[in-house]
């Protein structure tokens, strides 16, 4: 395994965390020093809310999947803490049926919080195993089911929860300092997770699950890991919450608080930890002010009458306004330190490429953090892998081969018994008219669809029907015909996410091969078209694949651009010593790039051989131009390709 952080990310996230921590500590000191118990009470509830919101952010923000069920984990933590902290005499009085060992139990603050987190994590693991198999919208539904399920369990499991009446007598352990430390710990955990490789992989899957899987991300596992982690935080938060609110019933863990916490997250910006805290702070301040108005205030001669229901109403309005003006929340995907850095660099909010952030060169000077790569100078000299040149032109067994592969979509035969082999170091071109099955073949080779019949062999193993991330991890990388970048990730993050194995290439080398230095901190969604193509190739190349599958890399490029692309592809092939299978309509590019060409038409192989032979093959001419008997119709130029 690689280290849990990409170079420089650990330090960056700790620095970013301290920027949030310092003001929070200051506020706590200030409020505590003022000696106003009411203000202290508000502060404690803010710290608790913020910790809970950050707990939700860890899953919702990074996975992009909405969860309505997290409050159930908070409830699990709260009930667990209550059951182990309420003094035995009060406990038995409330719950006569409680088992003796539990009735006599009385634990302190820390064991109660740990137990709360553990209970939530165990339940999350069981539920999550089912949830992560579902599609995103169904998952949202599943989490809603969890919320309702939790509520009915809390309301009906009377021997432990005292039903709808609820429990009282929880000792008041959650002081300002306890909740402050809890919030700081949660923030640190969330920041570290977000910047870790695991967190980055999950964020990639949020942006585009298919592209993430094709980059070697096991989307389900990443989702499950984050789900359990964030449930544990909710459990701990609930345990602390119980020791601050002291008496509660099942209603505390239902829609009202779900709505309140989600509102904080959405207003602040769900994709950022800073946003979660900012949202909690904003809502706390607004609620505090409005609650006073709601109860009626008198400012000297002027008195405002009580307005019941004002708080909920105003917060709902605030959400709508926030979403209209800042759909991604106050902070969007950025953390406080990102914002400061980008403001300093002058690139924030503008389309112009942001200059390299100050710390980037320091990353390069830390070779210890990238142990897998040879020292920089050597790699930069691009030592060609010797193995690559030896077996050129298809000598020896193919690295990747399709044997009699067939694939149909509801009666449409996209592929009927296609066989092809990519030799070591080969550049094989795959051409054919629109709808001939090229993209479908690529999708079968990269595991997006299983073949209906036939085999796919890679390095001697049958990989037909394996999942995309297994195939990607085994050493096949691909790009997509309709570019699939991660719109809300920076270029650097694209490449870091894909550099998943110890054997990956150095991120900086790949960046310089493709000339991506000027756009490193730009978001994928803001890039010019040609740059997007290069980022996609960089994302594939960084994994040092044995085979690189390129799906129409030159689509939409002019001649100069496609010449540049040609040089890039050959340079990467030489540097990585990989084989390349390239699909394109740009015959000029294919003829120059490929040593061999494979031609498909209507799902069947019609020709294979060297570019010269193929170009004059009558079957190929017929596939492109139609049979001579009919009027020679020009090759179709519809955009929609292949059944995939």
């Amino acid at each position, binding site marked *: 395994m690689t280290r849990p952080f990409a170079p420089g990310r650990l330090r960056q996230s700790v620095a970013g965390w301290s920027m949030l921590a310092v003001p929070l500590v200051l506020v706590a000191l200030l409020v505590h020093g003022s000696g106003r118990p009411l203000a202290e009470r508000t502060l404690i509830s803010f710290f608790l809310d913020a910790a809970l919101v950050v707990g939700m952010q860890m899953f919702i923000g990074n996975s992009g999947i909405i969860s309505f069920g997290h409050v159930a984990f908070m409830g699990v933590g709260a009930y667990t803490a209550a059951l182990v902290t309420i003094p035995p005499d009060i406990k038995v009085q409330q719950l006569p049926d409680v088992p003796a060992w539990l009735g006599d139990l009385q634990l302190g603050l820390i064991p109660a919080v740990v137990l709360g987190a553990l209970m939530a994590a165990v339940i999350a693991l069981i539920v999550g195993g089912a949830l992560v*198999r579902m599609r995103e919208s*169904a998952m949202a539904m599943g989490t809603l089911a969890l919320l309702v*399920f939790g509520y009915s369990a809390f309301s009906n499991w009377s021997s432990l929860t005292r039903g709808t009446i609820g429990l009282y007598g929880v000792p008041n352990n959650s002081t300002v300092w306890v909740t402050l430390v809890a919030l700081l710990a949660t923030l640190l955990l969330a920041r570290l997770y977000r910047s870790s490789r695991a967190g980055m992989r999950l964020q990639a899957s949020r942006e585009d699950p*298919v592209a993430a899987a094709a980059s070697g991300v096991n989307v389900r596992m990443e989702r499950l890991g984050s789900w359990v982690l964030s449930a544990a935080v909710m459990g701990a938060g609930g345990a602390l919450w119980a020791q601050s609110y002291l008496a509660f019933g099942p209603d505390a863990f239902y829609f009202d608080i779900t709505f309140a916490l*989600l509102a904080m997250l959405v207003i602040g910006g769900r994709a950022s930890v800073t946003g979660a805290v900012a949202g909690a702070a904003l809502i706390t301040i607004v609620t505090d002010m409005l609650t006073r108005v709601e109860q009626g205030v008198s400012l000297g001669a002027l008195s405002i009458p009580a307005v019941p229901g004002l708080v909920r109403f105003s917060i709902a309005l605030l959400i709508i306004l926030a979403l*209209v003006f800042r759909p991604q929340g106050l902070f969007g995907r950025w953390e406080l330190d990102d914002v400061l850095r980008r403001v300093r660099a002058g690139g924030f909010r503008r389309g112009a490429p942001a200059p390299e952030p100050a710390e980037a060169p320091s990353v390069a000077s830390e070779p210890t953090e990238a142990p897998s790569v040879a020292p920089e100078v050597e790699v930069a000299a691009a030592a060609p892998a010797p193995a690559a040149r030896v077996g050129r032109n298809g000598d020896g067994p193919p690295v990747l081969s399709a044997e009699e592969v067939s694939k149909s979509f509801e009666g449409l035969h996209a592929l009927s018994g296609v066989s092809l082999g990519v030799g070591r170091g080969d550049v094989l071109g795959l051409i054919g008219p629109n709808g001939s099955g090229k993209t479908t073949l690529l999708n079968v080779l990269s595991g997006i669809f299983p073949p209906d019949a036939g085999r796919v062999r890679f390095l001697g193993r049958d990989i037909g029907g394996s999942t995309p991330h297994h195939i990607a991890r085994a050493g096949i990388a691909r790009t997509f015909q309709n570019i699939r970048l991660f719109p809300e990730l920076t270029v650097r993050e694209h490449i870091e996410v894909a550099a998943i194995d110890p054997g990956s290439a150095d991120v900086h080398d790949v960046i310089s091969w493709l000339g991506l230095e000027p756009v490193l901190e730009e978001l994928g969604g803001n890039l010019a078209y040609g740059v997007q193509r290069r980022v996609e190739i960089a994302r594939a190349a960084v994994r040092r694949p044995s085979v690189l599958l390129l799906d129409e890399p030159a689509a939409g490029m002019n001649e100069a651009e496609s010449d540049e692309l040609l040089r890039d592809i050959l340079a990467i092939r030489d540097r990585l010593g990989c084989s390349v299978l390239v699909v394109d309509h740009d015959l000029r590019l294919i003829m120059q790039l490929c040593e061999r060409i494979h031609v498909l038409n209507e799902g069947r192989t019609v020709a294979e051989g060297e570019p010269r032979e193929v170009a004059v093959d009558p079957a190929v001419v017929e596939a492109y131009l139609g049979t001579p008997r009919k009027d020679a119709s020009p090759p179709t130029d519809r955009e929609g390709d292949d059944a995939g």
Partner: protein
Amino acid sequence: MSARELIQQLVNALSLGSIYALLALGLSVVYGVMGMLNFAFGELVTITGYTMYFVSGGNESFLLMALVGIAASTVSSMGMELVAFRPLRRASFLTLLFTSFALAQIIQNLFRQLVSPRPKGVPVPDLFNEAVTIGGIKIGVLPLITAGVGIGSLLLLTLFFRRSSAGLAMRAASQDFVTARLMGIPANRIISLAFAISGLLAGIAGVLWVARLTSVSPAMGFTPLLQAFIASVIGGLGSLTGAVAGGFFLGFLEILLQATLPSGLLPFAQALTLLAIVGVLYVRPQGLLGRRAEAL
């Protein structure tokens, strides 16, 4: 279970299922064209209910109350789209979800402030509490009416979707909105129409719902919304036929659990329904009639 009980329960299931089917279809019509889950959909049921409550003050006939309620729901639905969702046309799924969530809160609070936080009774005809005996089997009038009105509305709507050009446009738009626009279907009009149909369905379902509850309260829209959401997810989110199938599936499942669960587990009936549905989604993540997504 005797044959008599079986038939009684079957009518109950058909009646509950047809309400759910109407609700799910109303939610799906909007999801289809806009890709949004309208959390304020339940509030359309609330609006229908309160409109009926206001009209009922003058001793009006139930039919008139119902028609005014349905009209109010339809108009409110179109109004919601115009005021809250049109400015956010290009926003993400989550943004729209939260906007509608917030809108639902606002509407609920309006009823809480302007009417009362407590439930208000709505008079229903005595006929609804009676039962008729058909072939020796006693069947409640209300379930029969509900099933009849529900299934009748669904048939009429099917006719609209299949036979009218506006219905064809709606179906096209819910399969591929972008392409439908390119084929000359006006976006604003089709979205307005979708919200109108959604409001109409919520209104019809709302009348049937109020007839069962005989009272209205500010938070009454929650259960219908939840059931509509669940039913359309089981059916396959975005599939109109799936929504109807999911609605009936959910109705049957609920009646089945109520009829067969031991009394100790009855409080968990809703939770168990959800569990069963999560089970369905486990096996078929795309829903009963949904299209399969790309593999992960």
